[in-house]
């Protein structure tokens, strides 16, 4: 047999064996069904985001259609009198979140630096699980501790009441810390060791290396850590509800702003949804607040996601 004959025989063999038998078809049907199910499962995540938005709109849309925007953004939240000014709630959320960011960002970034650049390995092995543990503590437990332990301390410090925006900020800061620390530690870790070696070799101190070289190189990851931390803080409900005092008024602008009771958007939904009759305007407005929260966190996460995309693209380009 010549070489071409052998090839032809083999080709026919393979072709004969590849003829669809009943078993083969059955196997492939199963395969087709399973692959379709897997694709559907993947697709379902986008459908769920759509459904969440749809059901929020379905219940909450009357808020934005039936209440004039000026009334909606007025400063009086008295639902029993038909006054649905969201401004005090928005200011409350922003104030508590801003306070939390002011505490959590410096603490989080420095802790990430400590873990990534300074801590000896044995410390890392203790500290990392401990920080993961913090992420695992339910928010209601932290809120409870804030209520029974932190609030009295803050009152002793001279505030008129312990249940203030600041108490909420402290609790929120610690809830956002695990997110900020782990993402910024990843960002620091991604900075090539060569950068550090080069900086140290030309005589920079460790601090100069961190501050002038490692930090700028990890910038976009650090920004993302901060953004996701903010996203986590603004959506937190139970802990904030227990410790911020829930007063729906705008604190007077000034240095003691943080030391007055406020009420956040999330706490308002949680506290009032149980008491409203379904279908009432008050009920719609609570869903309307949900829409605002959804859009806010969506925007934050979308921006953070794009940032990561850019970072990955740059790294693939071989620059970093």
């Amino acid at each position: 047999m010549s070489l071409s004959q052998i090839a032809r025989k083999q080709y026919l063999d393979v072709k004969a064996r590849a003829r669809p038998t009943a078993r083969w078809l059955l196997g492939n049907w199963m395969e087709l069904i399973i692959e379709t199910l897997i694709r559907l499962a993947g697709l379902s995540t986008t459908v769920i985001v759509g459904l969440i938005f749809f059901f929020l709109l379905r219940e909450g849309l009357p808020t934005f259609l039936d209440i004039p925007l000026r009334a909606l953004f007025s400063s009086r939240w008295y639902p029993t009198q038909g006054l649905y000014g969201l401004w005090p709630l928005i200011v409350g959320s922003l104030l508590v979140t801003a306070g939390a960011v002011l505490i959590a960002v410096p603490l989080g970034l420095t802790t990430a630096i400590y873990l990534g650049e300074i801590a000896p390995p044995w410390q890392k092995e203790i500290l990392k699980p401990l920080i993961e543990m913090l992420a695992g503590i339910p928010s209601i437990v932290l809120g409870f501790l804030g209520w029974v332990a932190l609030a009295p301390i803050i009152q002793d410090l001279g505030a008129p009441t312990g249940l203030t925006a600041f108490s909420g900020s402290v609790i929120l800061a610690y809830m956002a810390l695990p997110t900020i620390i782990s993402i910024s530690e990843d960002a620091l870790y991604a900075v090539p060791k060569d950068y550090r070696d080069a900086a140290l070799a030309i005589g920079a101190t460790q601090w100069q290396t961190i501050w002038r070289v490692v930090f700028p190189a990890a910038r976009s990851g650090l920004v993302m850590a901060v953004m996701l931390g903010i996203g986590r803080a603004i959506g937190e409900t139970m802990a904030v509800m227990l410790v911020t005092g829930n007063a729906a008024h705008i604190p007077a602008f000034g240095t003691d702003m943080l030391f007055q009771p406020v009420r956040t958007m999330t706490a308002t939904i949680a506290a009032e949804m149980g008491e409203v009759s379904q279908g009432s305007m008050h009920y719609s407005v609570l869903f309307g607040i949900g829409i605002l929260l959804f859009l806010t966190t969506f925007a934050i996460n979308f921006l953070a996601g794009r940032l990561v995309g850019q970072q990955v693209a740059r790294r693939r380009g071989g620059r970093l």
Partner: protein
Amino acid sequence: MKRQHTQKLAVGLITAAAALVVIPIILVIVMIFVKGITAISWEFLTAKPSHGMKAGGIMPAILGTLILTLGTAIACIPLAIGAAIYLAEYSSDSRLARWVRLAMVNLAGIPSIVYGLFGLGAFVLFLNLGTSILAGSLTLGIMTLPVVISTAEEAIRAVPQEFRIVSQSLGATRWQTIRHQVLPHAVPGIMTGIILGLSRAAGETAPILFTVAAFYLPNLPRSASDQTMALPYHLYVISTQVPAMPLAVQYGTALVLLLVVLSLTLTATVIRARMRRRRDW
């Protein structure tokens, strides 16, 4: 040497900041243990609340949390694993895959109270399930999806490419390859993700506020369409809604909740550590 001083100062400050993060964590855990342990007794764990919840035990709340966690697992696991396989094995850089990824990131960021609103609008009212274990489990299940999907996806991606190539070169189809060569190696990682996700769900209060949680139920739930008590909501109720509540009972409830959640987290950590040690590639 000015910059040497700066160096020392900076390292000192950084260490101090790290301590400021870590010490309160230890304090919180120690405080709950020390103050909560006095309330814990056999009766506390196995009896129903009595005297306006000021005495007796918290058994219905513990049981409720376990039921809800199980319900969450049933609602979330099939979908999460399917989506994880899709992202790891089927999605190349297609446009659909990018949409799915965007959806995941956003699901992870949605506040828990908004999940509660969604559960109320979709399951309790639209599907007419009422405030029930079913509605609560579905709400918690959807909230848990992103955590489980992203961990499971990572676990599946970590299986070396060679396994797939060899399997397919021997004539296995794509699904056979995934089923027999990829998933078995990814199981520990997927389990870690599931347990971590469930530990989050077990501790959540906001999503169950309007979908399942009951203030006080003397009887245990008998079907999936009943309401139930749950530990996180119970802690909220007894610390804010019931006047003159003994502090020990509150700390005791917080401790039980913390133990439930942390034991799940610990299980996940142990599985992950073992997996790293056993990995044979």
